[in-house]
């Protein structure tokens, strides 16, 4: 929307931060500077207000510890050379970029004969393994807003990680059949009394690494089986039975779970138990379950990888066809074992978030980063290519945590000479094909 001179208002902007993909952000620009934001959470405000800061001014190539500015074409050529010469390249990241970028990335992995993995591997990878074993009963966030009268957050603290989840979808929105907070019951199960737990009607403080035990006891309780232990996972059995009664007695319940389940002891077994609990609950009432996805397009990364290769993450294309073996073809395992000999990182920062062994091996091989902003990985990269920020300076598609696609808008121009991840990846793919043809 164009207003008075120099003033521009972009409405219904989708926030490219977390899996909520809030699509009601209103951004006001005055002469290319954001002067006002409406409907943004604290993190979204930081995202929009600081998007121009901490940017790499131009593509960089690092030689003997010194980085030099190069043209985009030179950076693409060097990237392609590294990838073509690699025996087992790893292409990793993809959860904070568009579906279109990942589509090109998969084509590139196929062309190179490498492994392509997204950050699911270190967040809800165990969730996918659990779903593949058990199946899931799920729904959209819209259905939750209109119908859910019981909401459980398990191992998840949305007040901090998905700040508008409670107000837009679960606790206080005005839904068709649930008009206000009083129409909903909130249960929080966590190892700490988190900010989310403080809003709960019922808080269960489970002992660390004991979620599987509590899930198993709950499954028994909802089937009216006798729990022999007096206390399970730090919770008295009477409290577990009361919680089971609460779960059974709702009309439409939903469990949102976070990394408290996937990262704790048991990992995918915890998820299998949670999915099984929901399956059992559906014999008594209507119940759903949904992972709280973190990066704004990690769900899209799974969708695109699945429809392109048949598998949601950790796809090995070295044999000329896709194969998938979590624990072997997952990025962190490959890095831990020091198997890959070149890494392309797109919109991710393993130097900041991967454990030490993986980082130590990463530092032994050539690393290429494609990222709009400075990441710690970009500081050590052999080639660092800056791009336009998707959702602010470039458009693209992303999937909300419940599998609903949203179009991320371009609301302003990128710095001069910057193009989108999609364009850069297309250039690399073209150059890789050229270099392979020549070799």
């Amino acid at each position: 929307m164009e207003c008075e001179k120099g003033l521009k208002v972009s409405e219904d902007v989708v926030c490219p931060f977390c899996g909520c993909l809030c699509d009601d952000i209103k951004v006001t620009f005055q002469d290319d500077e954001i002067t006002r934001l409406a409907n943004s959470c604290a993190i979204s405000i930081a995202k929009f207000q600081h998007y121009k800061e901490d940017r790499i001014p131009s593509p960089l190539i690092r030689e003997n510890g010194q980085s030099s500015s190069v043209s985009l074409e030179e950076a693409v050529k060097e990237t392609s050379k590294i990838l073509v010469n690699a025996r087992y390249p790893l292409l990793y990241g993809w959860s904070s970029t568009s579906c279109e970028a990942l589509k090109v990335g998969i084509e590139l992995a196929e062309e190179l004969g490498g492994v392509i993995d997204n950050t699911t591997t270190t967040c809800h990878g165990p969730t996918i393994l659990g779903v593949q074993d058990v199946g899931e009963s799920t729904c959209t966030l819209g259905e939750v807003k209109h119908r859910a009268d019981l909401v459980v957050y398990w191992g998840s603290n949305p007040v901090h990680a998905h700040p508008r989840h409670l107000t837009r979808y679960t606790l206080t929105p005005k839904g068709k059949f649930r008009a206000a907070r009083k129409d909903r019951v909130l249960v929080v199960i966590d190892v700490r009394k988190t900010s989310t737990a403080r809003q709960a009607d019922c808080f269960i403080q489970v002992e660390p690494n004991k979620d599987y035990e509590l899930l198993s006891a709950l499954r028994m309780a909802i089937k009216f089986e006798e729990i022999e232990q007096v206390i399970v996972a730090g919770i008295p059995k009477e409290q577990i039975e009361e919680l089971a009664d609460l779960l059974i007695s709702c009309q439409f319940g939903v469990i949102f779970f976070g990394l408290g389940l996937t990262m704790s002891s048991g990992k995918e077994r915890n998820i299998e138990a949670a999915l099984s609990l929901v399956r059992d609950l559906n014999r008594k009432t209507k119940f759903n379950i949904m992972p709280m996805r973190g990066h704004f397009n990690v769900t899209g990364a799974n969708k695109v990888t699945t429809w392109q290769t048949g598998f949601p993450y950790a796809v090995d294309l070295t044999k000329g066809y896709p194969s998938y073996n979590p624990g072997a073809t997952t990025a962190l395992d490959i890095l831990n074992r020091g198997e890959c000999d070149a890494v392309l990182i797109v919109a991710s920062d393993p130097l900041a978030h991967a454990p030490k062994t993986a980082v130590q091996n990463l530092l032994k091989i050539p690393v290429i980063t494609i990222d709009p902003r400075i990441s710690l990985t970009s500081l050590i990269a052999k080639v660092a290519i800056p791009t336009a920020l998707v959702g602010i300076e470039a458009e693209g598609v992303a999937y909300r945590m419940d599998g609903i696609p949203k179009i991320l808008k371009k609301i302003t121009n990128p710095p001069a000479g910057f193009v989108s991840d999609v364009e850069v990846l297309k250039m690399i793919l073209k150059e890789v094909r050229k270099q392979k043809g020549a070799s």
Partner: protein
Amino acid sequence: MRVTLITGRTLGQGQGKEIGKTSERYRDSVAVCEIDPEDLEKLQIEPGTSVKITTDSGSVVVKGVKSTQPPHPGLIFIPYGPWASTIMEPKTDGTGMPSMKGLKANIEPASDQPVLGIRQLLKEQYGV
């Protein structure tokens, strides 16, 4: 003192990383350890001073702060970020997922040791 270590997101960590990975705000939001008030007393740690956290994977010095989400005696919390990552368990148990919650750790006062900036941390931990 033996404790259980968990990591996770916080509002400050989310804001800090959007402000910039090399910013002081990022370091101030993630190079911290939330400690239960009871444990702070037991360990005689003055909130705001350095603490050293050690796991099987290594040690890191961060700022010890009073937990905003107590009570959780015997449990400490560090937000996701490079400080926490250096002491995480890299093994994935065949799932692809490292163990970043529920780790056994040791915490001790380290008021004489500084909390390193990001570039110093990378130098100390990885030599880069």
